[in-house]
């Protein structure tokens, strides 16, 4: 895409000495320090380019309390290149003959779930796989367009495992774990081999070898792709491997089953409670270990690029049962989506960022200007990105482009319905390159735009607006991908582990498949080697309790019989989240949002109207349960965003910016993972900090001026 690296500015090295002199053992003697940090400090002045001014956090206690720090106890130390090998060697193995005695539940059949189910089935474990869709092939990984990164260095352009690791840590704005990220980069090359062997039809050169392109502002061409449908093709590869295991009898598939509760018995995750979406029946399933591969929670915003059914319920129920939720406020917002056309809008559609290579982004200089785009003369247009960021222009990173678009719309200069859009204009590109060349490059995107909006982007500028796209936060996991509940593993977007505060383009597919094909199958054996665990069934008190919780909740949702639809609550929650916990967050806004969410949650449980019964296909009931969980998650996201009084990655705090309006991190205070412990609905969550130590990458602040 470009020949620069937007995450690099060697001239501005950030002083991170506070971190560098941390003791290497992450478990050693930090409780006192952790307690001291309860009096969190934070620069409050507007436009503060300052270092952290010591100021007391006035009422932190009103929102959360501070618990013991936590540590990733599974990650080996030593040279980063050998840590994964070391862990694999140190992990216990399960004899092939014993594997068939061990059972695994995997929830979710996207890249991270289907790949894990297929691989564990091939290894000989008894696997039960669950998805809410009517077929595992429809999980939302299927919608990923761009590509998948891998450090193959086929281009001989200086790529390497270390460079992919380095780019990912830096892209994550130094809020991810070095060990995890290095492993991700390390196994990336195996993913491509695996997928090619399965028959994934990647783009190829005339010589028959794989084609790659550059993506998301990195300087090497390491992104493999299958036209604009890479996610689909990778998912179908994993799905076919999964179906092969279903036929072989190692995997039992439960499509149209929604996980509604986790069963934690005698300190271990041992099963799940699901609802058969077709019959309404509540079922329990037990196993020696449970894996959640249930994706992200972007739908808390109501409008996002997620699928209609994408939800947080499985992860949230696990959180309520003791799994810590890490960095929930880290959300990625994509700048080039098709804007909302009316209040009936149900979802947002992403268009490839590559459009910004040739399109020029602008709005009218005056908010009063109601003329058609083509009738507005050049000197009355504001090409605001080119104006504010002359070096990078329309190619500034995602979060900056997104925030700038929102800012001009907030000023009343937005275009299109509701004033929520900016122009992405190809007139100059067509003049310069000719319509044919533009068509060859972007034809399919222009067609898609025309199909959705009914407008011809060759004639009139496209309108775009940012949309929620990916959530970097998720359930906390250690190096083995195990959560704080023994026997509960979490993979893919559902965990928090690899992307820090911001994910690089084409890295979501890489992480999903890395976790499912190569990481989890190795680490889960270490846990299963102690099994099989004592058999449990429906009569175990933990199972009885979980089933009761589910049936009570279903009954409660159906019996409120209020006056508002589920969607009306979801929409309202989305508006609160978008306004106050979206692209730009502020102390005042977040406090306000928390109050509003609490009120809305109460209104929901008193006034929601869920028609029908629990005994058959009831799509309103499915949505109601999901929205109920979003109403709890939303509050935690705001609390997390409130407590993180710095700007990093996808999290921009209005109070923490440079004079130029750039994001300002505070590594001395916030270089940690915020892992939240649930204590009760509406109760203060407990914050556990996992310190992030950078041994191999130097922390730097970015700049795009």
């Amino acid at each position, binding site marked *: 895409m470009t020949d620069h690296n937007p995450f690099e500015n060697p001239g501005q090295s950030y002083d991170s000495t506070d971190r560098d002199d941390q003791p290497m053992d992450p478990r050693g003697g930090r409780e006192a320090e952790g307690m001291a940090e309860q009096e969190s400090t934070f620069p409050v002045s507007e436009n503060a380019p300052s270092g952290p001014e010591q100021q007391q956090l006035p009422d932190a206690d009103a929102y959360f309390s501070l618990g013991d720090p936590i540590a990733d106890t599974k990650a080996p130390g030593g040279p980063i290149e050998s840590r994964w090998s070391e862990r694999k060697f140190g992990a216990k193995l399960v004899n092939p003959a014993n594997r068939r005695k061990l059972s695994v539940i995997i929830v979710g059949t996207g890249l991270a779930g289907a790949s894990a189910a297929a691989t564990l089935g091939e290894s000989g474990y008894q696997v039960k796989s669950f998805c809410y869709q009517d077929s595992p092939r*429809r999980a939302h990984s299927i919608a990923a367009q761009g590509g998948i990164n891998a450090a193959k260095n086929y281009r001989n352009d200086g790529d390497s495992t270390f460079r992919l690791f380095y780019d990912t840590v830096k892209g994550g704005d130094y809020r991810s774990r070095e060990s995890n990220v290095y492993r991700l980069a390390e196994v990336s090359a195996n993913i491509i081999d695996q997928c090619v*062997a399965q028959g994934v*039809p990647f783009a*190829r050169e005339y010589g028959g070898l794989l084609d790659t392109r550059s993506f998301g502002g990195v300087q090497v061409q390491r992104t493999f792709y299958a036209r604009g449908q890479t996610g689909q093709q990778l998912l179908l590869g994993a799905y076919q491997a999964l179906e092969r295991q279903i036929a072989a009898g190692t995997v039992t598939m439960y499509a149209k089953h929604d996980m509604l509760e986790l069963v934690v018995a005698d300190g271990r995750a041992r099963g799940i409670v699901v609802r058969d979406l077709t019959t309404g029946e509540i079922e329990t399933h037990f196993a020696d270990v449970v894996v959640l591969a249930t994706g992200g929670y972007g739908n808390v915003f109501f409008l996002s690029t997620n699928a209609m059914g994408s939800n947080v319920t499985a992860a949230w129920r696990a959180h309520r049962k003791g799994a810590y939720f890490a960095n929930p406020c880290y959300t990625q917002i994509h700048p080039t989506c098709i804007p909302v*056309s009316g209040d009936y809008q149900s979802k947002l559609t992403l268009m490839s960022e590559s459009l910004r290579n040739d399109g020029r982004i602008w709005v009218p200089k005056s908010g009063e200007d109601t003329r058609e785009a083509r009738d507005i003369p050049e000197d009355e247009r504001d090409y605001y990105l080119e104006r504010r960021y002359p070096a990078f222009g329309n190619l500034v990173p995602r979060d900056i482009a997104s925030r700038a678009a929102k800012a001009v719309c907030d000023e009343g200069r937005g275009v299109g319905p509701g004033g929520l859009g900016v122009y992405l204009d190809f007139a100059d590109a067509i003049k310069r390159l000719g319509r044919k060349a533009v068509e060859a490059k972007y034809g399919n995107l222009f067609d898609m735009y025309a199909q959705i909006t009914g407008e011809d982007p060759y004639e009139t500028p496209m309108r775009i607006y940012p949309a929620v796209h990916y959530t970097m936060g998720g359930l906390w996991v250690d190096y083995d991908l195990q959560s704080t509940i023994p026997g509960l593993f979490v993979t893919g977007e559902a965990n928090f582990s690899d992307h820090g505060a911001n994910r690089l383009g084409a890295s979501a597919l890489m992480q999903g498949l890395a976790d499912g094909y190569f990481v989890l199958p190795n680490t889960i054996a270490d846990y299963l080697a102690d099994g099989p665990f004592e058999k449990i069934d429906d009569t175990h008190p933990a199972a009885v309790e979980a089933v009761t919780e589910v049936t009570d909740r279903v009954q409660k949702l159906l019996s409120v019989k209020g006056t508002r639809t589920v969607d009306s609550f979801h929409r309202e929650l989305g508006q609160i989240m978008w306004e106050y916990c979206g692209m730009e967050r502020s102390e005042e806004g977040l406090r306000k949002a928390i109050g509003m969410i609490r009120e809305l949650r109460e209104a929901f449980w008193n006034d929601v109207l869920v*028609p029908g019964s629990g005994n058959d296909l009831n799509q*309103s009931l499915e949505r109601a349960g999901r929205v109920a969980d979003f109403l709890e998650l939303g509050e935690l996201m705001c609390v997390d965003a409130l407590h993180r009084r710095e700007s990093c990655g996808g999290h921009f705090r209005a109070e923490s910016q440079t004079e130029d309006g750039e994001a300002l991190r505070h590594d001395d205070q916030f270089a940690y993972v915020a892992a939240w412990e649930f204590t009760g609905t509406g109760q203060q969550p407990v914050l556990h900090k996992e310190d992030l130590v950078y041994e191999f990458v130097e922390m730097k602040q970015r700049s795009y001026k």
Partner: protein
Amino acid sequence: MNITLRVWRQAGPDTEGHMETIEVPDVSEHMSFLEMIDVVNDRLTLEGKEPIAIDSDCREGICGTCGVMINRQAHGPVRATVCQLHMRSFDDGETIDVEPWRADAFPVVKDLVVDRSAFDRIIAAGGYISAPTGSAPEAHSTPVKKADADHAFDAATCIACGACVAACPNGSAMLFTAAKVTHLGLLPQGQPERGSRVLNMINQHDEEGFGGCTNIGECTAVCPKGIPFDTISQLNRDMLGALLRGE
């Protein structure tokens, strides 16, 4: 604009269904068809009635979940999935018939929702390349002709929506099956299982109750992904070859 919907309502798999007429005023032409149904469903809910059951998920034309007959055409008047169909494709005052896919192998679950699990079983019967995780050779060890890779990709874009079956007078899933047979059969990695794959998939296809293919071509005409009709010729060639070799 104002429209009149005539929608298939069926409470469950074993109950009788009927067409129900619903007036829908004030429809914006920018709404997608599914958003129009969302609005109708919100209204039905508030009126104390059961909303229309209809499946959709990604709403960007790739997951293959949505799919209904609209005015007796699979996915309606535009060659795209229903989620990509907008109300501007209809006229003010128009009456629009909405029905589920009709095929023996796709039993109705409720209203417009059908059971398409037969597709999964066809794939499970052979729609894969056996490559257990960890066993893969280096990706560049086997070059693939660009033309083959491109054609394989074209066939691989099938989203398993089921429009081909719904449009076929025989209720055949041959285009769906052929798309997978062609995708995998064009690649060098797919050769060892090429014969057994096609035979096992065809057997499963027939067992599920899908009809035979008589080369009518309705399937490809309604396919939102434009899966080429000649994939079926490829399937027939592969099948004949496998039978002649006695696989």
